[in-house]
């Protein structure tokens, strides 16, 4: 079997909206459909041309458990295209992109669509287990007497909703709290975090002003649901470090440094990327923007190194591809928390970490701020869990063209102690 090269054709996303705002009346699959429709229109891709579709998601609705299928069908992809959904917390879209790249690499398809969609405004809230069991039994009820007995068995506690929170299942620790502890452990100050968060906001606002982000986004208009949505409503132009310093800690109230201002916020949105083989480019008359060279996944003990994904995945990727940090011009790294990105950067330039954890002679190296997340990041633009990987990829390719550079690396951390990194080359 020949190994083929994988080309990035184009990518697009919906504007990202804070949870409970612009998209509060939409379901997750509708956001995905919107992005798919837009990318097809923009690139003149016909309904039957996609040979496979894969979307990532984190908040699963039971009615649309294979959300990729529902999004593709409503977004204009033919019913003859197989679709599947993947889930790997905040790197779900990365997993979808990795999987669709490999499908092309192995010659199983010539044109694929990968990305992700999530709506946190519409989380499935469950009844407690006992109530679920009682309700399940109603399926076999025959007489009205059965229902009468069922009603008599109900207790007030049965109606107490179970709302899922962003906590590690195995350790029971909420992610913000974990990041708070790591911030203390790796000595990241509140001031550094606020400074970084303000930078993210200012850069995102500027990228919108400069028109770069507008090119990556499609407007969303659902009659009756809302006005047309055309911009990311988490981006706040006037944000300064001084303003952020006034906020109270959000997780560890007394000794904490993480606030709503320097943590990514709950977001709704979808993003997709189109991938093709050389044959696919020819067959469907598409122009590539970049080549996807390689990717790696990493995993660490979630109780100890939950959000260190980039600190492990970037060295693993570059060592595998025999490149150094200096060879890379564009870095797009997911910003779960300002503290998280700062301690990942800190560990990469730490001798101790390089020696003890990466098995190197010294530090892996320093990522210069002039190369990192120059158009904002998850802290300002927002972070729909399942979609961020695709947004980052699209932006990285876009930046390679605007900045006229060769290599880009995208990287992210995820719940479960996972990490991902991908190497991209402009064409």
């Amino acid at each position: 079997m020949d190994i083929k090269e994988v080309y990035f054709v184009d990518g697009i996303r919906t504007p990202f909206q804070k949870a409970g705002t612009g998209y509060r009346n939409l379901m997750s699959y509708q956001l995905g459909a919107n992005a798919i429709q837009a990318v097809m229109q923009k690139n003149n891709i016909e309904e039957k041309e996609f040979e496979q579709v894969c979307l990532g998601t984190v908040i699963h609705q039971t009615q649309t458990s294979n959300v990729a299928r529902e999004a593709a069908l409503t977004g204009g992809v033919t019913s003859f295209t197989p679709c599947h959904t993947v889930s790997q917390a905040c790197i779900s879209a990365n997993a979808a992109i990795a999987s669709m790249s490999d499908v092309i690499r192995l010659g199983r398809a010539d044109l694929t669509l990968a990305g992700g969609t999530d709506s946190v405004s519409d989380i499935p809230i469950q009844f407690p287990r006992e109530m679920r069991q009682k309700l399940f039994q109603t399926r076999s009820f025959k007489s009205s007497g059965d229902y009468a007995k069922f009603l008599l068995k109900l207790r007030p506690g049965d109606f107490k909703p179970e709302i899922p929170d962003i906590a590690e299942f195995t350790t029971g620790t909420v992610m913000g709290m974990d990041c708070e502890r790591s911030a203390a452990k790796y000595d990241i100050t509140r001031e550094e975090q606020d400074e970084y968060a303000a930078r993210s906001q200012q850069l995102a606002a500027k990228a919108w002003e400069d028109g770069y982000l507008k090119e990556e986004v499609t407007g969303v208009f659902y009659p009756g649901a809302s006005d047309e949505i055309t911009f990311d409503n988490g981006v706040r132009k006037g944000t300064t470090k001084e303003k952020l310093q006034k906020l109270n800690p959000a997780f560890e109230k007394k000794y904490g440094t993480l606030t709503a201002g320097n943590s990514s916020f709950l977001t709704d949105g979808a993003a997709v990327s189109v991938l093709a083989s050389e044959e696919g480019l020819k067959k469907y008359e598409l122009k590539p923007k970049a080549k996807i060279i390689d990717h790696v996944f990493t995993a660490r003990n979630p109780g100890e190194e939950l959000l260190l994904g980039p600190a492990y995945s970037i060295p693993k990727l570059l060592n595998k591809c025999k490149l150094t940090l200096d060879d890379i011009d564009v870095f797009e790294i997911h910003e779960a928390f300002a503290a998280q990105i700062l301690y990942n950067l800190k560990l990469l330039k730490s001798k101790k970490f390089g020696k003890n954890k990466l098995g190197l002679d010294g530090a892996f190296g320093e990522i210069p701020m002039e190369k990192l997340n120059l158009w904002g990041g998850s802290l300002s633009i927002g972070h729909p869990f399942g979609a961020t990987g695709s947004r980052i990829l699209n932006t990285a390719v876009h930046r390679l063209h605007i900045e006229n550079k060769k290599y880009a690396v995208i990287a992210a951390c995820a719940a479960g102690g996972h990490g991902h990194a991908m190497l991209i080359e402009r064409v």
Partner: protein
Amino acid sequence: MFKLQIENNVGIIKLNKEGSDHNTISMDDLDSMVELLDTIEKDNSIEGAVFYSEKKDFLAGADIKKFLEMSEEETRKVGKTGHSLFNRIEDSQKPFVAVIHGACMGGGTELALACHGLVITDSSKTKLGLPEVKLGLLPGLGGTVRLYKRIGLPNALDYILTGKNMYASKAKKFGLADVFVDENFRLKAGIQLVKDIASGKHITKKSKGLSVKDKALLFGPFKSFVISKAKDNVMAKTQGNYPAPLEILKCLEHHPGKSREEAIKREIEGFTKLLHSPEARQLIRLFFLMNSYKKNPYSEDLSDAPEHLSVLGAGLMGNGISTVSIDNGYKVTLLDLSDDALKNAKKNTSEYLENKVKRKQISRSDYQKLLNDLQLIESDEPVKSDALIEAVFEDLELKQKILKKWSEKLDASALIATNTSALPVSEIAEVCTNPERVLGMHYFSPVEKMPLLEIIKTDKTSKTALAKAYDIGLNQSKVCIDVSDGPGFYTTRILAPMLNEAMIALSEGYEPQSIDRIMKKRGFPVGPITLIDEIGIDVGAHINRGALGKMFKERGANSHPVMGIMEDKGWLGKKSGKGFYVYEDKKKSVNPDLANLFGDDHSFDKKADSEVADRLMMIMINESFYCLQEDILKDAESGDVGAIFGLGFPAFTGGPFMYTHKKGIENIIDLLNTLKDKFHNRFEPAQILIDYKEKGKEIYKD
């Protein structure tokens, strides 16, 4: 040890013993603390200070080696110096805060109690404690003076008398923590607490004092009741053989209502007395021995340390072995032909782990992960693994058959161990392919609790195999000794004549309970008659019939036949409800039909006296010398360790060899000869004792 740095107007006193993983405190360290306190008190810009450690422990305790060299006068002097330092901290106008993470034992806890405020981390590694009693001492830097004022008299007695750990959640429940916090915020929390106390924003838990109820228990008839109840407990447990708990009781009875200076004076007296008691010397020796026995003596020959164990037989022993194995990181395949036995074993393991979850020693997901490391297979066919520990019935032919089969299928490097208390390991090894990796691993029941593992080597056993057996045992937190193969190895061999002597005493008309009582008085945790009921009379009878019984017979000491008769009647001891005692509704009384076994008119009308106790003790001690003489033991020290940790030989004596050493070889020989003349030549002193005496050789160098 102590380094001061100032941050944000708060002194951070870092505890950092250079060149050691653990922080321990010594007298020299206390001297260096004086300067720090001077600096902190003189500098007006410093608001207060925290004691803080970046190591995994806060303070693991005091350096006891140095104490052993001190005279009584020096001990008192050092005690006074330490106390005046801690008093100075307690009396300081500036707040002192101890930031506790990891182990905070002995002097660490006492330092914390002297401070004004406490930050305690919620980590499962965090534990406080005053373990001095385990060394035959009392907490001598204010432990008896300050703890009861914080957690009440009954709780303080409980912790100081047992020396047990107080885990973080317990410390919080007792109200010791001013701030209870994640380990990563501990320094920040400590600094903030100093500031809050200094500014009056925080009222310390220490200043709030005890509840009305706990205060009431400090005086009058309530105090007397609490103390006398604790004393009853101590006497029941120790028979008065250990002076430390009694001295602790006296201190805590004395202190309430007295001034701090009076209480401290009393504590120093108690500590000085105990430090120079022979019991403390032996317990401290044991403590150091335990630490040195934590190292694998064959570590140089260790390669491919086993990770996956097969345990064959899911009975009591196999179950216990697999439980302690998974609890210590091993993957275990447990095999048995009975599905019920397997399921029952998994249930027991699960309950054991559940208990650890309840005590917050492991998390719920750890529980699941550990339990998943136990795989059950209803078969006795070999499965691929790094080591086999076989624990089927004590039947030589069965063991030979099974181990032969396994040795043919397992990799040549895999360890093969048989768990047996008396079967000849050499005869089992003989039938195996690659017999050099076959050895015995004699665990004691209940495996989860008993600290000893006796490893039995044959002539062929390789050092690599020994290294692996040690590796497994040490990982299972066992104290390990290795002995040569021979009838009953070491522990069973010295226990059997002692139990047999108890049978003879019964036949002479000594009352069973009185025999148990007198041996408990001598310091054994259980009396011999109760012990044999618990081990199982069938097991005892089986051992008497086997090689060990034969060996004694050849030496002219017949095994008493009573256990064989009882086995035939189905009186198997506690497990069958009837043995030397009958067990009904949790009550135990002498089996009314027992006397008849010794003759028609037999009655137990004599109370065991110290001569009976001497006979039981001496026959056991004499046999341990036979083991040294025949090279079953490699040295006297491992014999002391084995007897204390495997058989409950009184710890304060230091073990059979140390006991002989302290009493004098000549006196022991004399006593044996006296017993021999009066009773039987089974008391004939071992030749090695005579040789030692004649050559003037010492068992131990002082």
